[in-house]
């Protein structure tokens, strides 16, 4: 049973129109307290427009939005006191030092946190006295997250957090987001990386052409495909396909040269295949499993590939 208190963002029939295009077209969803909620879709799908309506930076053309029980436009200063915002594109003055930025932004809130631990948590302690312009892309992004956390927000909006970061920095950023949630902050994020949404989010709304086409946990979305798992391996010696085909859950087998692909249901597929091969004394190489991902969900729902 969800009470009003558990819903930190409530959106009903949100519409935002730009000349000639409906950027957001009748979108409704709730974000629950304590979760990492992801909005995922290609560039131009309406993610940033939606998040900017929630943050009170854009006037919706239709529908209602509640953020922490307030109207993000009418009560904008009350809302800003309690949320943290990280923009897809924003900046700080080139010659502001990292500590000055944190100290300054802390002064804008009535109940700021001590900014020194935030600096350390973000791994910026060494860059305390560096000018903002001298930081790397990843460091700048961490400064912006630190600023978004400076008021210990109940809700943090992270828009395209990891765009432009290398894979290693991206993974480090995921850990930061999990830490934010563990401290009790609800996270609303947008991304066009399906893997990011799958790994990081408790629930995911897939948005395309301004409409939400699916909303659930990543696992439920993937399971809803009823897609087969695959076990792929290579053999040099002849292979008796019948003993594999007889395994429970196996649907079909494909063989291209040395490469064998076994399709089947998830439970027990891998161990069944490996056991059967060992029992028959067949040497195999490069065995791996391929599972359906959120990428497959997106492809199925929209009929197109996501591209980075």
């Amino acid at each position: 049973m969800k009470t009003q208190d558990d819903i930190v963002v409530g959106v009903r029939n949100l519409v935002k129109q730009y000349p000639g295009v409906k950027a957001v077209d009748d979108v409704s969803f709730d974000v629950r307290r304590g979760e990492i909620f992801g909005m995922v879709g290609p560039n131009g799908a309406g993610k940033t427009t939606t998040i900017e309506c929630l943050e009170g930076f854009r006037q919706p053309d239709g529908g209602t939005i509640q953020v922490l029980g307030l109207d993000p436009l009418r009560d904008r200063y009350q809302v800003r006191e309690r949320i943290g915002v990280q923009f897809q594109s924003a900046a700080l003055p080139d010659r502001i030092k990292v500590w000055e930025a944190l100290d300054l932004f802390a002064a804008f809130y009535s109940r700021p946190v001590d900014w020194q631990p935030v600096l350390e948590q973000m791994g910026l302690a060494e860059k305390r006295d560096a000018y903002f312009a001298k930081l790397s892309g990843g460091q700048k992004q961490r400064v912006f997250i630190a600023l978004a956390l400076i008021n210990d927000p109940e809700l943090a909006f992270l828009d395209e957090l990891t765009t432009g970061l290398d894979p290693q920095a991206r993974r480090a950023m995921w850990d930061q987001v999990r830490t934010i949630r563990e401290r009790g902050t609800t996270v609303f994020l947008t991304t066009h990386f399906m893997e990011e949404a799958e790994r990081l989010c408790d629930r995911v709304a897939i948005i395309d052409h301004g409409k939400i086409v699916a909303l659930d946990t990543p696992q439920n979305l993937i399971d809803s495909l009823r897609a087969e798992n695959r076990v792929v391996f290579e053999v040099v010696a002849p292979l008796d396909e019948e003993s594999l085909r007889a395994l429970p859950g196996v649907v079909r087998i494909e063989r291209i040269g040395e490469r064998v692909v076994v399709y089947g249901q998830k439970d027990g597929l891998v161990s069944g295949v490996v056991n059967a091969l060992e029992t028959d004394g067949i040497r195999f190489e490069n065995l791996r499993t391929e599972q359906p991902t959120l990428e497959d969900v997106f492809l199925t729902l929209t009929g197109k590939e996501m591209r980075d």
Partner: protein
Amino acid sequence: MLGFRKLTIVQAKLYLREPMAAFFTLLFGPSLLLLLGFIFGNEPSPATGGLGYLDQSVAAYMAMIIAIVGLTAVPISAALRRESGVLRRFSATPLRPLTYFLTDVLAPFLMTLVGILLLVLVGAVVFGVRFEGNLFSLLAGITLGAWAFFALGYALVGLIPSARAVIVIGNVVLYPLMIFSGAMVPLAVMPEAVRTISRFLPLTHLVALLRGLWFGQPWGDLLTEVAVLGGMGIVGTLIVARTFRWE
């Protein structure tokens, strides 16, 4: 209030870290005075109405500093911050736009006052230039001039979306003002045509106002100047209020 105080301090620090702005605000006036002072000296001359060249110039250079800050430092910083997304980042906090705006003009104004103080000190110590007016009147005149020119600079930012264009137009407006307003070259030595044009330039009026107040002229003699600059301040402020946006 804490936000206002800290933001003012940070704005002032950022201002000083910008070499161009810091030079033209703090050092340009005193350097020009030193240079021209050593060339022309401060002997009374008929071309400058019986006064020494520098007696005439100190107040005029004050006006020039105000115009330079108002038409370059203030709008360039505001336009670049709007374009790069700095203002957007500020707008996501409970900070009120008006608070930001006040600190954004207060910091350059304080720097302008420091620049003017340095100018007067150099004039007094090196050339024995004397101040014959009322300090509060002069401060009031400087404030009026800063309001008029900062508002003009900010109005450019409100009216012109691109930062690059703001920089170009600010300079395009500034240089003729400096040359034809009697700030650098006394109007007495200019041809008649230039003197006619100069009557329509706001910097001419600021030079006249500050020069008058410097020599202790009563406000009653300076009503035209006050009206022109006050009108400019009001129009500029209205334009800013109607056109300036965080993004």
